[in-house]
């Protein structure tokens, strides 16, 4: 493993100052479940590791009228034990619950999952489906960016030097809305998504889909929002016929690669199946709301 300079500031300003002033490559550390493995693989360059876990505002989440203010460092295990959050965003919580094993969930965070920017990250499609954005803080102040714009490539995000995610904001869904996240893995646990789908669906009083957001993971360099898939549902009762159109739209939007985890052909097919199922679950939940 690369040699490390470790700092654990207790304020966001302190963290920004350390990251901004670093003379060597610098990485914020939240749960470390990706970062420590990446550091192990690196050989030569020393790295400044800025542990964010002493900064309490990054470790807490609140739910109010506006929605969810998700502290990016909060451990997934803590996040998904929050029944209040689960009742509003069941799909988002399910996505967080799928990140790694129990052991990994004890450390990994939604913010870390986001910043790691893996194409297969489970929380990202769920955040996108929920129209989430994040507030980035850095040496020149704060800015806000939609999650679908945050990730810029495989393992790449839009954070500049000295910047970190201060909070992830998830708006409170409109009445008649619910969400779902599904991923496909060959086993039942412990795998990286071969494909993933986040769905948020709003139904009006007679059960007609008024709005929808469908986001796909692991089938392109970044998670993608697929308006055509949402369009397949809007104005329908989210019946079998609409779901088939949705599945095709999702498959058509996918631009997967072939790798050890699945072929492009297989991913394209499975993402359609998942889209159908995730939308169906979200709609089912919305009907219950």
């Amino acid at each position, binding site marked *: 493993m*690369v040699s490390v300079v470790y700092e654990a500031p207790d304020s966001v300003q302190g963290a920004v100052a350390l990251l901004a002033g670093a003379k060597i490559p610098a990485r914020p550390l939240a749960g*470390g479940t990706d970062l420590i493995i990446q550091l192990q693989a690196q050989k030569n360059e020393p790295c400044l590791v800025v542990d964010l876990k002493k900064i309490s505002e990054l470790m807490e989440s609140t739910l109010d009228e506006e929605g969810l203010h998700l502290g990016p460092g909060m451990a997934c295990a803590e996040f998904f034990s929050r029944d209040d959050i689960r009742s509003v965003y069941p799909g988002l919580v399910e996505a967080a619950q799928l990140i790694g*094993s129990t052991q990994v969930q004890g450390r990994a965070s939604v913010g870390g999952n986001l910043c790691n920017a893996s194409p297969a990250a489970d929380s990202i499609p769920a955040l996108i489906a929920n129209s989430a954005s994040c507030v980035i803080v850095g040496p020149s102040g704060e800015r806000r960016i939609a999650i679908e714009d945050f990730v810029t490539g495989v393992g790449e995000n839009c954070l500049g030097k000295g910047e970190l995610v201060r909070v992830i904001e998830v708006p409170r869904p409109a009445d008649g809305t619910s969400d779902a996240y599904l991923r496909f893995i060959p086993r039942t646990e412990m795998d990286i998504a071969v494909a993933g789908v986040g769905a948020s669906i709003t139904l009006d009083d007679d059960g007609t889909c008024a709005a929808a957001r469908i986001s796909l993971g692991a089938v392109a360099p970044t998670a993608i929002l697929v308006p055509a898939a949402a369009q397949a549902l809007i104005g329908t009762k989210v019946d079998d016929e609409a779901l088939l159109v949705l599945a095709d739209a999702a498959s058509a939007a996918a631009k997967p690669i072939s790798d050890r985890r699945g072929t492009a052909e297989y991913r394209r097919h499975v993402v359609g199946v998942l889209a159908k199922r995730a939308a169906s679950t979200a709609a089912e939940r919305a009907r219950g709301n």
Partner: protein
Amino acid sequence: MTKTHVTTTVNGEDTEFLCEPNETLLSVLRNELQLTGTKEGCSSGDCGACSVTMNGRLVCSCLVLGVEAEGAEIGTVEGVSNKENLHIIQEKFLEHAALQCGICTPGLIVSTKALLEENPDPTEEEVRYYLAGNLCRCTGYDKIIRAVMDSAEVMRGGA
């Protein structure tokens, strides 16, 4: 590289150690503190052999830096039994023959204890999913699941 001084609590005992900032908690436990009950199976968080608790939460010690232990409470397999007796979970693992080679056993014991503290009355499915990060190649898991379910029942005062 200068070593960092870390003050922590391991199995309830105040503990100090020196470590490189890039050393994992797993390496610290095994190589600095000679607590070799925590096993290394993969060093990537995929097998659970190095499971410990950190501030009450189950983690893979291979995915924690030693320096992060500053001020934390660490629990390892060495702290599961008291001086007199094995923990019920340990007894049940033996009674049900829930180990063959025994390399995954420390991690499984620590994980099971964490599970039953969180959820004293788990279903078989809940046990199977909670322990999915603890790989065992010998047993096919059957006897492990039985040992955990039986431990839970006894710990609840059921039998």
